[in-house]
């Protein structure tokens, strides 16, 4: 299941990244030749926040998010797993709170337009609750994986246990 979600994340992220690059490339080229395209950059900007959250979810699945772990590194695995489990509960509550607030905010601001393009700003704000839900799902996935591995590989929720290792699951693109 996490592998399947990771594949979707990769495909969606790659398409977004390619489209954003293309939009800005075209806009810059057209502007250079005297035909500016305003909507092109606006659309790229709108898609950007979605790319950020999809990328953040993917980085979460790969346990890639930066942390300062030199104080907790010496502790035995059991304690670290317990600590990261507590973190997971805290982070998911935080993300859910943001998601609810974000959803309400989006519903309030549905009318607001985005630049001169006629796109609704709601497409930007709704990315926050959507991103929070995606991040929560990947934290849950990591949590299950970590607890299942507690007797064997000893994985954690947020931190890579082996510093040299790259992505821990099939993510569509890697290798």
């Amino acid at each position: 299941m996490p592998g399947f979600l990771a594949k979707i994340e990769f495909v969606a992220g790659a398409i977004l990244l390619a489209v954003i690059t293309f939009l800005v490339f075209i806009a810059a080229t057209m502007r250079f030749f005297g035909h500016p395209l305003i909507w092109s950059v606006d659309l790229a900007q709108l898609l950007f926040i979605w790319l950020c959250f999809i990328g953040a979810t993917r980085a979460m699945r790969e346990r890639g998010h930066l942390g300062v772990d030199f104080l907790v590194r010496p502790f035995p695995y059991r304690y670290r797993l317990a600590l990261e489990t507590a973190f997971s509960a805290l982070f998911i509550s935080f993300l859910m709170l943001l998601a609810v607030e974000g959803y309400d905010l989006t519903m309030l601001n549905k009318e607001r337009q985005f630049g001169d393009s006629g796109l609704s700003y709601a497409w930007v704000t709704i990315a926050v609750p959507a991103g929070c839900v995606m991040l929560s799902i990947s934290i849950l996935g990591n949590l299950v994986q970590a607890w299942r591995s507690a007797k064997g590989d000893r994985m954690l929720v947020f931190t890579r246990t082996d510093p040299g290792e790259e992505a821990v699951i099939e993510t569509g693109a890697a290798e």
Partner: protein
Amino acid sequence: MALIGIVFFALMLLGAPIAFAIGISGFTFFLTSDIMPVSIGVQKIATVSQSFPLLAVPFFVLAGHLMNESGITDRLFTFSKVAVGWMAGGLAQVSIILSTLMGGVSGSAVADAAMEARVLGPQMISNGYSKGYSSAVIAISSLITSTIPPSIGLILYGYVGQVSIGRLFMAGIIPGVLMMTFLMVAAWLVARRRNYVMKEMRKPTARELGAAAWGAKWALLFPVLLIGSIRGGLFTPSEVGAFAVVYAILIGVFAHKVMTFDAIKRAFGHAISDIGLIMLIILMSGMVGFAIIFLQVPQSVAGFMLESLANPVLIVAVILIGLFIAGLFFESTILVLLLTPILVPVVVKAGVDPVHFGILMMTIVTFGSMTPPVGVAMFTVCSLLDTKVEDYVKESLPFIAAVFALICLLLFVPGIVLFLPNLMYGG
């Protein structure tokens, strides 16, 4: 503010991912504030993403990963080896030159150090270089990438501190080249004494050098095109980032004919994760950034520093020493994102050009990743080459001295940093 600080440090020291430590501490401001509704916090997260200069981050991250797959690295390596391999400490000189050239196509110090440890490290050791010396040269020379454009760190600094990214790019060139020169001298002095030379190498003729440069022409041309296209604001750095992506694919597929569809997929995969982890920190810092401004933290810090220290050079020196100490413990990205909004108003009040300060700050916070106790570049290189950290530290002293000498020079002679940006954009 005290509560925000306590929550942040508690989460961070317990090892929570920084994005969440920043997000949750910023969120406590909105939860505890009587006047600020929580929904404003969500809005701040969304607003952060709506900045055009910030689009330079995904483009240059992607371009960097694509360049690595495009065969540019091998060609730059061949060129560097012909150009400086014959000198005393030839392979060390190659490592330093290669870092400078790689700095011009991608912007990550750790990635550069890891690549060189794999490519150059074993060769250096088999040529009789000590492990400590090899690791020190490889890790510390990757510091050059932090100021040579396109540097992701400088994009973040420019975005958070509201400083022109184009000017910062221009300002980083001369310090980067000087850093290369200083490190080459340090490497040469040590190598000459120990007689580290490659027997089979000799000084290249102009013809051989030309042939090697021609082989690497697309890689060498890229920084020239980059600087040419942002000069005087012809294109914005974000637009140039989009060009760089297209350029890397064209070179890899058509000129070098090494880039397959799988390689492009791999580059996209790495890029999406990197963008996600950098951008989640930036998005989450939208809330705490707002709180810092709302609570007038920069003004208080500036007031305090200006009261207690009158001399601007002294203020900057104190800040830089603080940054150096912070850099020993924290990742450079984190320091740039958290401290830039507080420090830039302070240095501006003290009469220091924020472009000048940015180059110094970037060099110093990145330097932390080459030193104990938590240097990522250091650990990467030492573990790849199986070097003891003590040996690394002992052998890195001449290079550390060279870096400090350069930082002092840049601090006291701002003209070195500001000459190019003022020339290109007007003072």
